[in-house]
C-alpha cells in the first residue's frame, strides 16, 4: 500500500530518461511534419532503423534518409499517433498508430490508394539523448488486408477460406480450383447480403 510512497523518488523519471522521452516525442513531431532532417537530428550517427516484419534494416543518415523519403513519398499524408510510452534507462518503448494513404510504390508495391491504419510497438534504444536503434513491430498481413491484397480474416476463417488453406497445404494443385470456388462463394454471399 505504502509502496508507491516509499519509492516515489525512484518511480519518477531520471533526468536522462526525461531527455530520452523528450527526444522520442520530438522525433514523432518531425515525422508528422515529414521533416526528414529534423528526424535525423534525433538520431545517433550509428542509428539503426529496423522494420522487424519487413526484415529491413537501415543504418545511419545515409540509409535512413532515403528510406524516409520513400516512406513519405508512398504515404504523402502519413501520420503517427503516439498512444503510450514507457521509459526505463536507455530504453524507450513507444506504442503508436500509423495512418496514411498508399499513393506511391512502396517496397515494390504499386499505389493501391488504400487508407491504412496500423498499430505498432517500438523498442527504442538511446545513447546520449539520441536514438540509437528502433526495432518496430507491426503486422504486414494487416497492411495487405487493408490494401485489399489479402482477404479479410472472417473470409480466411470461413468454410471456403479454410478449404482453400487446406488445399494450399495439402495439394497445391487443387488450390486454384478451390480458390475459384471460394471467390464465387464470397461473391454470392455478398450479393445475398446486398439484397437483404
Amino acid at each position: 500500500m505504502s509502496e508507491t510512497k516509499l519509492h516515489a523518488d525512484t518511480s519518477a523519471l531520471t533526468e536522462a530518461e526525461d531527455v530520452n522521452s523528450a527526444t522520442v516525442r520530438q522525433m514523432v513531431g518531425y515525422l508528422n511534419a515529414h521533416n526528414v532532417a529534423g528526424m535525423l537530428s534525433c538520431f545517433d550517427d550509428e542509428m539503426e532503423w529496423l522494420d522487424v516484419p519487413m526484415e529491413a534494416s537501415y543504418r545511419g543518415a545515409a540509409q535512413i534518409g532515403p528510406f524516409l523519403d520513400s516512406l513519405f513519398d508512398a504515404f504523402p499524408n502519413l501520420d503517427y499517433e503516439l498512444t503510450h510510452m514507457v521509459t526505463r534507462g536507455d530504453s524507450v518503448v513507444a506504442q503508436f498508430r500509423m495512418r496514411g494513404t498508399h499513393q506511391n510504390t512502396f517496397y515494390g508495391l504499386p499505389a493501391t490508394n488504400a487508407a491504412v491504419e496500423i498499430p505498432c510497438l517500438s523498442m527504442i534504444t538511446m545513447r546520449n539523448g539520441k536514438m540509437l536503434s528502433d526495432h518496430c513491430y507491426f503486422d504486414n498481413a494487416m497492411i495487405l488486408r487493408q490494401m485489399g491484397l489479402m482477404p479479410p480474416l472472417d473470409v480466411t476463417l470461413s468454410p471456403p477460406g479454410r478449404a482453400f488453406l487446406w488445399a494450399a497445404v495439402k495439394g497445391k494443385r487443387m488450390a486454384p480450383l478451390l480458390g475459384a470456388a471460394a471467390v464465387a462463394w464470397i461473391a454470392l454471399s455478398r450479393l445475398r447480403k446486398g439484397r437483404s
Partner: protein
Amino acid sequence: LSDLPTTLELTETELRNLRTVTDVLTYWNRQDLEGVLSYYDESITWLNIALEETYRGKAEVRVFLRKLFGAFPDLNFEVTYKIARGDNVAEQWFIRGTHLGTFMGIPATHNRVEIPGMSMAELRDGKFVSDHFYFDALGVLRDMALMPPLSVSETLPGRYALRVGVAGRRLVNGVWGLVNGLRGGR
C-alpha cells in the same frame, strides 16, 4: 549527459512485475495452460493485434492459448529483452515451434516457425491485467511456406505479380462498383 545516471533502483512493484513475467515463461514452455492462466487477473484484456482479436477474461484467453498450444505442441517462448516502469512491462520475444495443428485456419504444415514479437503488458498485484501482443502474421505464413520470401518483391517477376495483384484488385473493385451501381439503379 552521459554522466547522468540512466537507471535508478526499481520499485518493489517493478521488481515483482519483472519476476512475474519471468516466472510465467516456465509454464509457457511446458504448454501448461492453467499454469500460464494463474498469472492472469480475472479482468485480463488481451489484445492480439495480428489476429484482430480481443480476449476478455481468463476464459477467452484460455480458448486462444488452447488453440496456440494445440497448433505448436513444442512451443517455446523466449524473452530477449524487457523493461519495467510502474505497472508496465514491455518485452521483446520469440515464439518458436513446430506447426502440428490448425492455426489461423491453416492445417498443420509440419514446418518450424519462428515468430518475433513484442508485448506491452500491464500488471496489478503481480498478475497480468492487460497484454497488447504484436507479431507479424505474414512472417508466420512465410515460415509455413504459404507466402514467398520478402526478397521476391525485389525480383522482376515478383514486381510484376504485385502489379498484377494491385491491378486485379482495382478491376474487382471497379466491377463491384459497376454491379452495385446497376443494382442500385434498378
